[in-house]
């Protein structure tokens, strides 16, 4: 009998520890999964031609209200974007889609970077090859360059009597 209070205390402590864990999923489910600011930063105001988060036109206000309503209905980000595309077309998306022709918006810069890097590497390689190995001899041993030789010949010719 002496152990009963101890067991009760332990059971209460255990319940106290587990209660937040049990309540966590419910809290997470109740919390909004979609942030309206996040969506407004990823879609356009078609009339203004700017991001929705920067737009204050009447059309933008209606679009924001539409998004807020869909969030209230429990729609996720993809569903909201699909609904916006259904209303305004693909131009409402601020980011190009990752399929079809829009994919080129992601692929072309990568290809251009690789091609530019290859061209630069090739250019450096050719430049280094064309310059040849450095001449280790002292300047006096190398003799005059072509232009120096021409100047020398011209000077000698002037003094040639």
């Amino acid at each position: 009998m002496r152990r009963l209070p101890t067991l009760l205390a332990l059971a209460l402590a255990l319940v106290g520890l587990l209660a937040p864990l049990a309540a966590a999923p419910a809290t997470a489910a109740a919390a909004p999964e979609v942030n309206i600011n996040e969506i407004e930063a990823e879609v356009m105001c078609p009339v203004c031609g700017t991001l929705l988060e920067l737009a204050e036109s009447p059309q933008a206000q209606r679009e924001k209200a539409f998004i807020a309503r869909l969030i209230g209905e429990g729609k996720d980000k993809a569903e909201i974007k699909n609904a916006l595309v259904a209303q305004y077309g693909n131009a409402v998306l601020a980011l190009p889609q990752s399929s079809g022709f829009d994919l080129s918006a992601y692929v072309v810069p990568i290809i251009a970077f690789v091609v530019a890097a290859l061209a630069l590497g090739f250019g450096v390689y050719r430049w280094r090859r064309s310059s040849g190995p450095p001449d280790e001899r002292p300047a006096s041993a190398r003799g005059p360059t072509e232009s120096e030789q021409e100047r020398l010949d011209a000077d000698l010719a002037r003094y040639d009597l």
Partner: protein
Amino acid sequence: MSLRSSIVAIAVLAAVGLLVYGLASKGGSEIAVGDPAPQTMLDRLEGGGQESLADYRGRWVMVNFWASWCVPCRDEAKTLNELQAERGGPKFTVLGIDSNDLSPDAKSFVKRYGIEYPQLRDGNGDLAHEFGTTGVPESYLFNPQGKLKVPWRGPVDKKILQEQFLPVIPQKGNS
């Protein structure tokens, strides 16, 4: 021409081509008097199905771009509704084009203002772009051959209607 020169020439031509394409696709040219009506197919705002301006050949059509969020469109809708009641029929109709708008908002607008003339939906503004509109509202009167007769950028009130459109629009009873 050496291989290097050819590659440089092709790269320059490609860059210039991209710039020209970008500029050409960016700026939509404005439709002018005498131009044919664009043929883009649009969804009907209500009732399902699609139509284009070609479906209205054979009668005068006043194409009116509007949106539910557009304040001047409210007064204009009343004016155009009266016009439709007075002149609408086999020879003439007003045709609303709901542009850059949410369809639930547009349907509410049509209901609230008791609009009787047909409505098409240009949600992404493609047709507005083809017309080269600068905003809403704008109206364009086409003749039965589908050629533009009267363009009007801005709201149509009774005075504008009287001066610009009514002299051209046939009476209901005229043959």
